[in-house]
C-alpha cells in the first residue's frame, strides 16, 4: 500500500474513532470498545474497497456490508456519515428518542445500512443469504460481514458457515474481530471458541489471520479474498479493543459504556493529536 493511501485511511480511521466517541458521549450509552477495534476495517471497507454510492444507497448492484455484531453501530454510523450518507453532525443524536440513529443498525431508518442487526448470530446468516442471492441472480456483488469473537459463540453462526461453504459462496468475505474480550470478561474465560482459524477451515473456509489494526495486512486479506475461488473467505483480525483511546484499550469495562464529559475530553484530545500528527506527516 502506498503512503498516500495509508495516510488517507489512517485519517478516516481516526475520524471514525472521533465519531464513535462523539456519538456514544451524546447517547450516554452504546458500545465504544468493539467499535474502536473495528474502526480500521470500517475505514478500509468504505474508503478503499466497497463499490457503493452514498447518493444512491439502495443501488441494486452495490456491494453489501452486514454488521453482524450490531452493537458496534457507532463505528459503522461514523464511517457512513464520513462517506456522505448522512451528516456527521447527526452522530451525537445516537440513541436519542427522536433520532434515526437507532441503538442497533436499522436498515429502514439509516441510509447505507444493508441489514438490520443487533441480535447476535443473525446478521451473518442474512449476509450469507445476500451472497447466495447475488450468485443466484448472476451478479458481481461482494458481501462483507463483521462478527465479534464473542458473537461466534452463537450456534447459528456455524449454521451460516456450513451454508456458505455448501453453496461455495466465494463472494462472501467474513471478518471476525478478535479483540479477545466480551461483556463478562475475556472470551477465553467466558466461552472459548479457539482455535477460530481451525474451526473456520474445518467449516470449509479459506482462512487468514491478520493484525486488524494494520492497513497493509488488511490489504493482504482483501487481496486473498479476491483471489479465493469456490469457497468463502474468513479473516480473523487480531485487534485491540478500545483501540485509539488510551484508557479504553484492552479494558473490558469499555465494551458497553459511554464516556462521561471528562473522559470525552481526554479521548477527543488524544484523537485530535493523532489527527494532527497524521496530517503533518
Amino acid at each position, binding site marked *: 500500500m502506498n503512503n498516500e493511501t495509508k495516510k488517507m485511511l489512517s485519517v478516516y480511521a481516526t475520524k471514525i474513532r472521533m465519531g464513535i466517541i462523539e456519538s456514544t458521549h451524546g447517547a450516554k450509552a452504546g458500545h465504544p470498545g468493539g467499535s474502536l477495534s473495528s474502526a480500521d476495517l470500517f475505514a478500509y471497507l468504505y474508503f478503499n474497497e466497497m463499490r457503493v454510492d452514498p447518493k444512491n444507497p439502495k443501488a441494486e448492484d452495490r456491494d453489501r456490508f452486514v454488521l453482524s455484531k450490531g452493537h458496534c453501530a457507532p463505528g459503522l454510523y461514523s464511517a457512513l456519515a464520513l462517506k456522505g450518507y448522512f451528516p456527521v453532525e447527526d452522530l451525537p443524536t445516537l440513541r436519542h428518542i427522536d433520532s434515526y440513529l437507532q441503538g442497533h443498525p436499522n436498515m429502514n431508518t439509516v441510509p447505507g445500512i444493508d441489514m438490520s442487526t443487533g*441480535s447476535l448470530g443473525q446478521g451473518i446468516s*442474512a449476509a450469507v443469504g445476500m451472497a*447466495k*442471492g447475488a450468485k443466484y*441472480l448472476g451478479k458481481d456483488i461482494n458481501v462483507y460481514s463483521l462478527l465479534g469473537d464473542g458473537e461466534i459463540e452463537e450456534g*447459528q453462526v456455524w449454521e451460516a458457515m456450513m*451454508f456458505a461453504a455448501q*453453496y461455495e459462496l466465494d463472494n462472501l468475505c467474513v471478518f471476525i474481530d478478535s479483540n479477545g474480550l466480551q461483556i463478562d470478561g475475556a472470551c477465553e474465560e467466558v466461552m472459548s471458541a479457539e482455535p477460530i482459524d481451525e474451526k473456520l477451515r474445518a467449516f470449509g473456509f479459506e482462512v487468514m489471520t491478520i493484525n486488524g489494526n494494520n492497513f497493509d495486512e488488511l490489504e493482504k486479506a482483501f487481496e486473498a479474498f479476491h483471489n479465493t475461488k469456490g469457497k468463502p473467505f474468513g479473516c480473523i483480525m487480531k485487534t485491540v479493543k478500545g483501540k485509539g483511546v488510551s484508557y479504553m484499550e484492552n479494558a473490558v469495562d469499555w465494551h458497553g459504556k459511554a464516556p462521561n464529559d471528562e473522559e470525552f475530553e481526554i479521548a477527543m484530545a488524544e484523537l485530535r493529536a493523532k489527527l494532527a500528527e497524521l496530517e503533518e506527516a
Partner: protein
Amino acid sequence: MADVKMIATRESYGNALKELAADGADKLVVLDADLSAATKTGIFKKAYPERHINCGIAEANMMCVAAGLSTMGLVPFASSFAMFAAGRAFEQVRNTIGYPHLNVKIGATHAGISVGEDGASHQCCEDFALMRAIPGMVVICPADDVEARQAVKAAYHYNGPVYLRFGRLAVPVFHDESYKFEIGKGEVIREGNDVTIIANGLLVNEAIEAGKALEAKGIGAEIINIATIKPLDEELIIASAKKTGKVITVEEHSVIGGLGEAVCSCLSENCPTPVKRIGVYDEFGHSGPALDLLKQFGLSAENIERVATEFVK
C-alpha cells in the same frame, strides 16, 4: 361423501409454488430445511431445482438467509414444520424478518395436533400466538386446497412478511374454483341468526358440518371462515356478533393467543358479546391418529354442535 376430494393443505402449498413459477413468478425462490418431502416443496423442487435452496437442518439460519435473499429483490418462501418455523426460529423471524419488515413468506406445515403420531414435540399449537405478536406480520391459515393455493399466490404478490399455516392431514375440499381469497377478508359460508361460529383451517369444514346438524335442530348458525387471523376482518366479525349475540370460535391451536383471543379482543372493545372458545386448553398433545386426536380434543363437528346447542339454550 365419496365424491369429496381430500387434499392436505401442505400439498396445496407445494402445488401452488409450482403454479406460481409456471405463471411467471420470476422472483420466487423456495427454501427448505431438509423436509421437502414432508412440506411438499419437493413438488416445486422437482420442477425448478435451481430455485429450491435446501438449508439443511438449520431453521434459524434459513429464516435469516431468506431475509438476505429478500433484500436482493427475490421473494423467498422459507418452509418447515410450524414447530420449527414459528417456534425454534421465532426470534430470527421477529428480528431479521419482522423488524425490518422484509418481503419473506414463511410456509409452515404440520401445524396443530393433526400432525398425529409424531406426538407433542411436533404438534405446534402456539404458532398463531407467536406470529400474531410480531408487528406487521400477516398470519394466514387456509381451510382447504382451493383457499390454500390462492393464499400462497396472494402472499407472493403481497409486499411484506407473511406467515402461512398448513396441515399434514388430507381434508375435504369444499370451496369451488370460483372462490376468491383476499388477505384480511373473512368469508361468510352460511348465514344464521342464532349463533356465530368462527373457524379457520381444517376446522372450517367441521364448523360447516356442525352448522348443518344445528339447522336440523332448528338452530341457525352463521358460519364464518377467518383464514386471515391477522389482520383480522373486524367489520365482518362485529356485524355477525351484533346479529346473533353469541359467538363460538374454533381453532386447532391453543385457546391462548390464537383466533379465539383475537375475536375476543375485537368484540370486547367494539361490541361486548358472549364468546365460547373451542381449541386446545393449555395442554400438550400426544401421539395418535389425527382424526382420533381431533375428536379427543373436541375439535370436531360433534363438539361444535354440542357447545352451540348448549350456548343458545
